[in-house]
């Protein structure tokens, strides 16, 4: 039983049967991608929070809204987060005002719709990749389990062919198969944790955006 003596991680993976190796490859790729998304979400949500922080600071210091709008729309980059909601709402408000002869309620309604649309786009960006993390978290343990079951089936089938059944004949096969479950769990656990954390982070951002929308609507109504 030379196999039992040399049970390094790589020989275990190399010694596994083809379906198990496929499962392992899929799981490793999934794990890489899910970790990639995890870090992307970590950075983007953090950035959205700091952006919202700085924009709220600028907004509530009580400066001129026109100046703020010009500052935002003059930059070449597309505004993000709260700034894009503000831009969409204020642009719509100005247009309605320039046309004149409009009811105040209609103007407010238009600005509100524009802000709602911008808000939905922002939220969609924030929500990106979360479904992927959710499915990795729930599915990859099963995929790993499938690889393990397949590998153990092979190990026991090999056992049936030998006259004297010893544990050392099955042990390498089972160890190989269990590597699949290990990889599956390694992909799933961070994905589930990240999903829960990010979805709560996105919810908090959504509440923040919505409350900003309500407050901004009030300010526009007072102006008109």
């Amino acid at each position: 039983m030379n196999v039992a003596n040399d049970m390094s991680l790589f020989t275990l993976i190399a010694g596994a049967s083809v379906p198990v190796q496929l499962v392992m490859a899929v799981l490793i790729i999934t794990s890489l991608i899910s970790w990639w998304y995890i870090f992307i979400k970590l950075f983007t949500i953090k950035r959205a929070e700091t952006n919202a922080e700085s924009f709220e600071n600028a907004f509530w210091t009580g400066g001129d809204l026109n100046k703020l709008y010009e500052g935002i729309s003059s930059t070449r980059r597309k505004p993000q987060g709260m700034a894009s909601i503000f831009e969409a709402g204020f642009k719509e408000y100005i247009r309605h005002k320039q046309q004149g002869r409009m009811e105040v309620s209609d103007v407010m309604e238009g600005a509100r719709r524009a802000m709602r649309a911008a808000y939905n786009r922002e939220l969609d960006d924030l929500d990106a990749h979360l479904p992927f993390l959710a499915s990795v978290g729930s599915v990859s343990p099963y995929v790993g389990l499938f690889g393990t079951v397949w590998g153990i089936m092979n190990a026991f089938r090999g056992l049936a062919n030998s006259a004297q059944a010893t544990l050392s004949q099955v042990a390498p096969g089972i160890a190989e198969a269990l590597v699949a479950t290990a990889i599956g769990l390694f992909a799933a656990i961070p994905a589930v944790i990240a999903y829960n954390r990010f979805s709560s982070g996105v919810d908090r951002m959504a509440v923040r955006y919505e409350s900003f929308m309500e407050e901004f609507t009030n300010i526009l109504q007072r102006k008109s």
Partner: protein
Amino acid sequence: MIRQHENPVAFKAGMFSLGVHAILIIAMLVSFSWHTPQPISIAEVELWENLPVAPTVVPPKPLPEPVKKVEPKPLPEPEPKPEPEPEVKEEPKADIELEKKRKEAEKRKEEEKKKVAELEKLKKQMLLEEKLEKQEALKEKQRQEALRKLQQDMLADDDAKAPKASTAKSSSAASAGEVDKYKAMIQAKIQRNVNQSLCGDGDPELHYEITLMPTGDVQGSPKLIKSSGLSACDDAVERAILQSQPLPLPADPNLRAEFRNLKLKFHPNE
């Protein structure tokens, strides 16, 4: 795959992701010892090394050697006195003794090989040349030999080694005799436990090889070297061997080495 607004962080995130996996793989390689130790064979070796030191208590001390030597000595001492006084009377006695000797020598010739006979002849010549004192000495020797022979006949089967041992020289002869004696004891003890009804009417002969531990227990199971032809008989003898544990062993550890691997011959119907 990724949104436009995520482009600036995508590369950084990818690097982090690869880093996490690299750390995990390194941690697995470092923290696991991927080589399985095999302690079983080592344990066996230790058992063998430790056991021989421990026993010493098991068998009673082998008295026979000293007893034999002590017994004949007191006999000759009183005898020498009558020797010098009646010279005439002594000669016939010597003759008778010579005859006795010859008879025994002949018996031995039948049993033993030529060397023994030559030795005896030499001894006879010595006897003839020298006088009564030496005859007396011979007497002692003969008595010793006769005693030894008697004991061996009682204890041992007609083992090929037994006669050789009697003619061999002092210490090695003594140890060989001791070994044979214990072999005979072992064989006798096993023989008592054999169920003879299983071995038919003839005289089946079978050979077993056993490995003895220093405690007198049989290690593993006896190995059948030559079957008697009756598997029931073979089994009966094997059962007898296992039933006879612990087998008698000499106290002397040097002698015990001879008993580690024993080849035993059995005639269950004798």
